[in-house]
């Protein structure tokens, strides 16, 4: 097992100082090189779980092991891509991508490596542009190149395409699939889109809300590229939907309750 999530619990205190369970007894093992989606409605703690793996959030109890080592803080072995590109606006595309490499290698070497990944996301011609000169989709591609540039074993992606339009999203799906096949990274991909998770991943972890728990672990066994297998995709979609239906109803009824009580 490459990534091992053992008995992870996460609580936080609400306004009345009452503990609220965000994640409850999460256990998960992920093989090296696997593309795993974490799928669930908003509020299921999927982003929190990813943030814990990244080392940005502490667990209340339980631990996470990567390659046998316990995770306690962020590290370059785990590259992270956020929903917003989080590029530094005062740096050019090239400077953004070489940001994580500055300390450990000479500028020339860093730039050669950065260029490789920028070409992988087809942005080799935008090296001296600033982030504000790029579209949202291009910015997100730079962010992916930046995470890849430090050559991490694991790529953590928190709804990376959530803020993009449909066409851009499907283009980036293809690119990400190619990058994954080329680089053999282990990818943890958080999303709330069922079709996105089926399109991309080997395995889908379906999560439920209140508290955040793992409902189902689904293996997606459809050959790639997957566009041609519409029937199989639909089958898995229905399968996942049967689990999520209850969760979505739960969220909706809670929202209605909240609306009525205010």
């Amino acid at each position, binding site marked *: 097992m490459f990534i091992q999530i053992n008995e992870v619990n996460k609580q936080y205190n609400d306004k009345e100082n009452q503990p609220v369970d965000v994640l409850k007894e999460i256990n998960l093992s992920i093989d090296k090189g696997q593309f795993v989606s974490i799928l669930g409605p908003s509020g299921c703690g999927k982003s929190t779980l990813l943030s814990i793996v*990244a*080392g*940005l959030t502490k667990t209340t109890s339980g631990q996470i092991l990567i390659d046998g080592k316990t995770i306690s803080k*962020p*590290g*370059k072995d*785990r*590259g*992270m891509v*956020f929903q*917003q590109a*989080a590029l*530094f*606006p*005062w740096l050019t595309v090239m400077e953004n991508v070489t*940001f*994580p490499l*500055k*300390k450990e290698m000479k500028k020339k070497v860093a730039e050669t490596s950065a260029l490789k990944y920028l070409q992988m996301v087809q942005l080799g011609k935008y090296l001296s542009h*600033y*982030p*504000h000169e790029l579209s949202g989709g291009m910015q997100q591609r730079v962010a992916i190149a*930046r*995470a890849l540039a*430090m050559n991490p074993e694991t790529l*953590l992606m928190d709804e990376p395409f959530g803020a993009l339009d449909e066409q851009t999203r499907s283009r980036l799906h293809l690119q990400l699939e190619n990058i994954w096949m080329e680089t053999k990274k282990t990818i943890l991909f958080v999303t709330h889109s069922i079709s996105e998770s089926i399109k991309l991943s080997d395995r889908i972890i379906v999560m439920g809300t209140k508290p955040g728990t793992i409902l189902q672990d689904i293996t997606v066994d459809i050959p790639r590229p997957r566009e041609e297998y519409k029937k199989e995709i639909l089958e898995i979609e229905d399968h996942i939907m049967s689990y999520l239906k209850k969760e979505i109803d739960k969220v909706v009824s809670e929202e209605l309750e909240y609306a009525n009580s205010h």
Partner: protein
Amino acid sequence: MQTAIKRMIFFAAIIAFWELGSRMELWHPLIFPSLSSVFSALAEGLQDKTLIYDLIASFKRLAVGLAISLVIGTLIGILLGKSKTADDTLGAVILALQSVPSIVWLPIAIMWFGLNEKAVIFVTILGGTFVMALNMRTGIKNVSPLYIKAAQTMGANGIDLFIRVIFPASIPYVVTGSRLAWAFAWRALMAGELLSTGPGLGYTLRYASDFGRMDIVIGVMIIIGAIGMIVDQLIFQRIEKSVIKKWGLES
């Protein structure tokens, strides 16, 4: 275009009223001199270089005072932005001091440094420091947590994180702070010079007033205003605009 025409007509009307009013002796030249006499006073001052020397003297003090106030203000601002304890204690004092006009410090400055240039520079420094500190503090506090998280996942932490991410991310506030610090320091300097010694624009202003040279008084006032406007519009507002664009803060 419309605005430009309106402005031109407006200023032409004021200038015409001013010059005609003086010539028709609607008011005494000692109360308000004519435009042409102001111009000739300015020309005279430029020719015998007294105004040039005044300008250089004032700018020297401003450069020293503003530079020191920007450095101190930045350091205090960083301290307030990073340390909650400092913000709760020193921060409250800075906020209170910010509302004290810096010229109020002149009597105490004269006691400490004597009636000389140092006292004026001290007042200029105080003029810029607090506003710079408060802007720097806001800048540090407003850095997007996303930038910090992203940098942490890329191995940055501690002082490295500050220098490479937190400080550059707060540059828009540094620019605004500098612009306000310049404006406050410029006002403080003029007030300080008016009340202490020369050479300098402020000193010449009082000197001319003492001798009843209203044409020089108005002339120097025009210079002071023009410099303020030029530096603000041509330098600071341009920098601010380009920074806002680059940092993606345009609304």
